[in-house]
């Protein structure tokens, strides 16, 4: 009987993996559901004896089994998309079953936790610091510093909170990891708990990820004894983007509105229920088991560029031919990612813009595609790496519409706590509309004869542009968190690089 492997990752399911698996079973094969390799343009991908076929449909089954399929891609593990990566966090992707303790142990699972328990909390903190690991949720804060702060903070109760809210468009690495290798995330959290002295952990996951929620809950049941006395509960978000911001997330966990808290106090000192709390992204925590394995910290530190150490699971998304998960050391350029690895646009048209780092990230122009992927280099270009999502747009994209959407998204998702974000995002949409219609005309009231003494508030297009710039400066400087504070990045970068889309001549 032929053994066939097909992923049960949500993306493969969305592309028809279940019907394909049923067709192989009907043809007499045994089907094993594994994690996804992350070559999304090939999903659903069929694996038979290491050879791949994709994207496959039930109609392809006969041809695949008789060795005549035109969808054969050859050996998967040596496919250039896979062979070119340095997979540490995603080392198991495609190779193991998510909920198999046996697969996990066979591939080095729990070695980091065992070693952490052997060497003790102080050495664990040292090694995480030495690895140079920085937070993968967006801000890039050194994990070692955060953990040490929590470890040293006074308090009998401490918490580990995993931020699995992954709200950024163009990102799916957290989802893939939670669905494909949930035990690694759990191991990372258990190591963190051991290092800082926490007994309870929470994974706060967005409600848009029902498959990941189920996998995590099942995985936690499987390994409860292994991580004991540490305990982890899964909590489900409720559709608020801002709850990915760490203090909003903590309020949400406490059963409150997801409003952002002022800092200080830092969550590391007064976080969940006022207790010292580690809040880390899924990818940050999932990188830890590798770092804690023998020699892992040096290995991690040896990769990367500048002060951005280790590897980044980059997500190739939007209008790109070869989209998917690409884990590589920092330092890679967009030119390499989009053209060499990603194969250009899916539509075959020229690339116009790329948004890096989700809805709050800048739109980069092809002239900037040689900037090395590293936190500092992006910050210097008024851009951000964020969670490592890359959304490609072809030349049909309307960048003024995208700028307006950034303001609209900010208005929809604002927690409402501060004015520049709550009101500014609405005013921002209005100003962009007026730029597009050529400026501001006097309204019906201003034109009434009784109003002859009032100054008409007519504004030229150029004055509206200046107003937008001023608004963005206020949002940037005066917002409490990065939702209001970073929305100006996509807006201003779109305005700067594609003025024609706003009906403006080049500036």
């Amino acid at each position: 009987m032929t053994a066939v492997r097909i992923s049960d990752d949500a993306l493969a399911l969305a592309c028809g993996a279940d019907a394909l698996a049923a067709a192989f079973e009907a043809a007499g094969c045994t089907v094993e559901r594994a994690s996804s390799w992350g070559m999304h343009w090939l999903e659903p991908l069929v694996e038979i004896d290491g050879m791949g076929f994709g994207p496959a449909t039930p109609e392809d089954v006969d041809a695949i089994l008789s060795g005549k399929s035109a969808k054969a891609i050859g050996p998967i593990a040596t496919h250039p998309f896979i062979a070119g990566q340095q997979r540490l966090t995603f080392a198991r992707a495609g190779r193991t079953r998510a909920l198999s303790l046996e697969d996990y142990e066979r591939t080095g699972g729990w070695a980091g936790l065992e070693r952490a328990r052997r060497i003790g909390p102080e050495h664990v903190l040292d090694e995480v610091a030495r690895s140079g690991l920085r937070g993968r949720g967006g801000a890039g804060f050194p994990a070692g510093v955060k953990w040490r702060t929590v470890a040293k903070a006074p308090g009998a109760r401490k918490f580990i909170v995993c931020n699995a809210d992954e709200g950024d468009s163009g990102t799916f690495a957290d989802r893939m990891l939670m669905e494909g290798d949930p035990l690694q995330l759990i191991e990372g959290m258990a190591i963190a708990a051991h290092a800082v002295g926490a007994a309870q952990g929470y994974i706060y996951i967005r409600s848009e990820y029902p498959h990941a929620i189920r996998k995590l809950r099942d995985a936690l049941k499987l390994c409860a004894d292994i991580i004991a006395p540490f305990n982890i509960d899964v909590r489900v978000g409720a559709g608020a983007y801002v709850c990915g911001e760490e203090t909003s997330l903590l309020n949400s966990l406490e059963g409150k509105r997801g409003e952002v808290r002022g800092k200080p106090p830092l969550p590391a000192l007064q976080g969940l229920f006022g207790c010292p709390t580690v809040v880390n992204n899924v990818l940050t925590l999932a990188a830890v088991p590798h770092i804690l394995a023998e020699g892992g910290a040096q290995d991690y530190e040896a990769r990367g560029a500048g002060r951005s150490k280790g590897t980044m699971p980059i997500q190739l998304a939007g209008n790109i031919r070869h989209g998917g998960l690409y884990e590589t050391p920092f330092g890679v350029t967009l030119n390499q990612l989009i053209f060499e690895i990603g194969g250009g646009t899916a539509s075959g048209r020229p690339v116009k813009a790329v948004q890096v780092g989700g809805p709050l990230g800048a739109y980069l122009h092809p002239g900037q595609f040689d900037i090395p992927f590293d936190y500092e280099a992006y910050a210097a270009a008024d851009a951000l790496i964020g969670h490592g999502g890359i959304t490609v747009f072809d030349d049909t994209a309307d960048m003024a519409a995208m700028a307006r959407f950034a303001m609209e998204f900010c208005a929809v998702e604002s927690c409402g706590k501060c004015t520049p974000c709550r009101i500014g995002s609405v005013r921002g949409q209005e100003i962009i509309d007026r730029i597009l219609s050529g400026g501001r005309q006097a309204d019906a009231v201003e034109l009434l004869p009784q109003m002859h003494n009032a100054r008409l508030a007519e504004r030229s297009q150029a004055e509206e542009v200046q107003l937008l710039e001023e608004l963005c400066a206020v949002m940037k400087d005066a917002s409490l968190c990065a939702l209001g504070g970073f929305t100006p990045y996509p807006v201003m970068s779109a305005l700067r690089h594609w003025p024609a889309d706003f009906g403006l001549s080049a500036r």
Partner: protein
Amino acid sequence: MTTDAVIAEILAAHPREQSALLPILHDVQAEFGYVDAAAERIIADALNLSRAEVHGVVSFYHDFRSAPDPRPAVQICQAESCKARGIDMLMQAARDAAGERVRLAPVYCLGLCSVGPNARVGDRLHARLDEAQLVSLVTAQ
């Protein structure tokens, strides 16, 4: 069972503390399709909160609705990566197919950003939608 009895059962399954509020609201929303003023009052009493506090939470999160909507719903991703793959061009056809009968709800990213345009119905996900597929997805609800 009466509404009150069902909510009492949901409450019994959770600890009586404010941190259980979101899980409780999720259960009530899943059971009835909305969390109305009457439900807010029962939950508030059980958790020793004011109704205003509970309502503040219900109204904050996009997942909770305060009134029933018997229409079937299709969530269509409107975020950047799906825009880059052309979702905006399909929306008029989707709206025409939905009419008043189906509720089209925007969602900002389903984590399938390399294979959009994408939609979600219940826990089922749909990727690589073209206009005909999106229309038939809406029509089938």
